[in-house]
């Protein structure tokens, strides 16, 4: 980056840096306010003179959230859905990506274009047919109704993105493996899989987020059995448009955001490189 720095005169660079910091503060502010409001005691949130700090942080809101409405259970439900979706779609996508990158076969390009088009299908528009399909499968009001569609919807993008990672493993390695007498299955799972693992992790961010954040399917498919609810639905229990329990909503939001944040920080390096790859090819 030195070339850019050299070409920018000092006052300009300082101005740029100051604005970068300022923008960072603005972008981070909603998150700060969320955590702050979660820790504020009840009287301070419902105050017409909101202050950007609190002198007496309390865990009341968190207690209320976890005490009421089986929040812990919803958290677990969300986790089960997200982890199942991530694991299953990663495995399926790995196999499919291997097929389309390391083999030449008829309809290969057609399939790739189909995967690309499948990515664009508005998931939301399919809520209605999926509702009836899940009813026929007897999956309504179960976590399966959330897991199955999310696996399907995260696959096309996952395959598309993994292609690059699979391609990056040199063919010579494969030849060497066969010369050493490895079977195709052995190569697939013992050599290729570990090498592609970083890519799988990057890919899984997207399936994790779509499953974790899902609001529409949870709202539509989990209609009567609230024990199968997930976090987004549980959160809205505290959010009544006329009289929202802001403390509860913010505490719930904080609890819901933290796992995603952790996941992001863990995989961000792969995320950026993986995005570059997905974008390029």
């Amino acid at each position: 980056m030195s070339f850019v720095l050299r070409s920018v005169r000092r006052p300009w660079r300082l101005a740029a840096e100051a604005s970068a910091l300022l923008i960072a503060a603005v972008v981070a502010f909603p998150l700060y306010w969320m955590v702050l409001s979660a820790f504020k005691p009840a009287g301070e949130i419902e105050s017409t003179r909101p202050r950007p700090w609190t002198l007496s942080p309390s865990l009341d809101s968190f207690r209320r959230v976890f005490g009421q409405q089986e929040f812990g259970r919803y958290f677990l439900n969300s986790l089960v859905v997200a982890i199942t979706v991530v694991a299953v779609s990663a495995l399926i996508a790995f196999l499919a990506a291997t097929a389309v990158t390391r083999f030449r076969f008829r309809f290969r390009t057609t399939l790739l274009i189909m995967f690309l088009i499948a990515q664009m299908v508005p998931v939301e528009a399919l809520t209605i047919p999926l509702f009836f399909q899940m009813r026929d499968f007897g999956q309504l009001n179960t976590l399966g109704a959330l897991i199955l569609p999310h696996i399907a919807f995260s696959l096309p993008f996952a395959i598309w993105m993994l292609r690059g990672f699979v391609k990056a493993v040199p063919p010579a390695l494969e030849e060497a493996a066969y010369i050493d007498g490895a079977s195709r299955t052995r190569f697939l799972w013992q050599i290729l899989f570990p090498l592609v693992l970083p890519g799988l992790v990057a890919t899984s961010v997207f399936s994790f987020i779509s499953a974790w954040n899902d609001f529409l399917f949870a709202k539509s498919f989990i209609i009567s059995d609230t024990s199968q609810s997930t976090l987004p639905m549980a959160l809205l229990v505290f959010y009544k448009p006329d009289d929202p329990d802001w403390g509860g909503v913010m505490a719930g939001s904080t609890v819901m955001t933290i796992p995603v944040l952790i996941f992001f920080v863990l995989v961000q390096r792969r995320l950026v490189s993986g995005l570059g790859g997905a974008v390029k090819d």
Partner: protein
Amino acid sequence: MSRMTNRSLPGSAPGTAAPGAGAPGPAPSLMAGPRPGTGAEPAKNAPSGGPWGPRTGRGKPGRTSPLARGGWTPWLYLAPALVVIGGLLVYPVYQLGLISFLEYTQAQVSGGEPTTFQGFGNYATLFRDEQFWQVLLATVVFAAACVVSTLAVGCALAVLLTRVRAVPRLALMLAALGAWATPAVTGSTVWLLLFDPDFGPVNRVLGLGDHSWTYDRFSAFALVLLEVVWCSFPFVMVTVYAGIRAVPSEVLEAASLDGASQWRVWRSVLAPMLRPILVVVTIQSVIWDFKVFTQIYVMTNGGGIAGQNLVLNVYAYQKAFASSQYSLGSAIGVVMLLILLAVTLVYLRLLRKQGEEL
């Protein structure tokens, strides 16, 4: 692809350029995107490979692995994916189309009444409905505004990131990652609290008293737009930034030696080189913003007062699940599907024009 190997394999990750010491573990690598190549293989390192060098490896058959002659093996590997996608994506699309041609209301769903074929009846009803056109227009305008703002903010900040040293860059990157990671539901509630007429800090700072942002149609849309831009600009910023980092420094140096201004460098050098990346982020933004659901649903409480803030997605949902007009909801879904399909075809054409290899 070499670019990705370089960066994604842990050993070679250029995380060494981390003056922002004290930052949490892996974060510094955010700033250390792809190093421009030494000139030996700029075309492979570049985001597009198009504009300034021949593309390598255009699918020469000799380069394929021994696995290539696998007979049925690829289909075996593809089977699970095809079954899942076929069953839970293609089949529902077919069903969606089918339902949109039937009469399908509560009577058919639970009453066991036979479904009747309506032909284009549902579409005729829909197209005669004034509210549909209003919602369609609102959706297009809203999505366009979101896309333009997201791209403008994302690109501007990506350029800004290249102008600053490690610490401000890390701060901005982390803040953006935080916004990116925030689930749509929580983002919506937090922004509602920020702009709350009674308890929100924004009205207090701006001295707006108890002005309600969600009461007026336009200010409600504007509020949702702010939230959408906030949570979707990071994708654009990170992607474009990674793209800029991959542009060989000689090119930019030459431009600035020739006395080009910053704006000129962006317009005449960077933008053309980043075109493939810009195409991708634009299309992704169009697709995301066109089907915003959660934000509208939560922030305007299901579509605003008298449905003033409805967009197609929420409209279809309300028609289907709130008033049990499943066939009308499906017809709206089909309209959305067709619009997005058109966008996808444009996208594919653009990709093809750039000579991208699939």
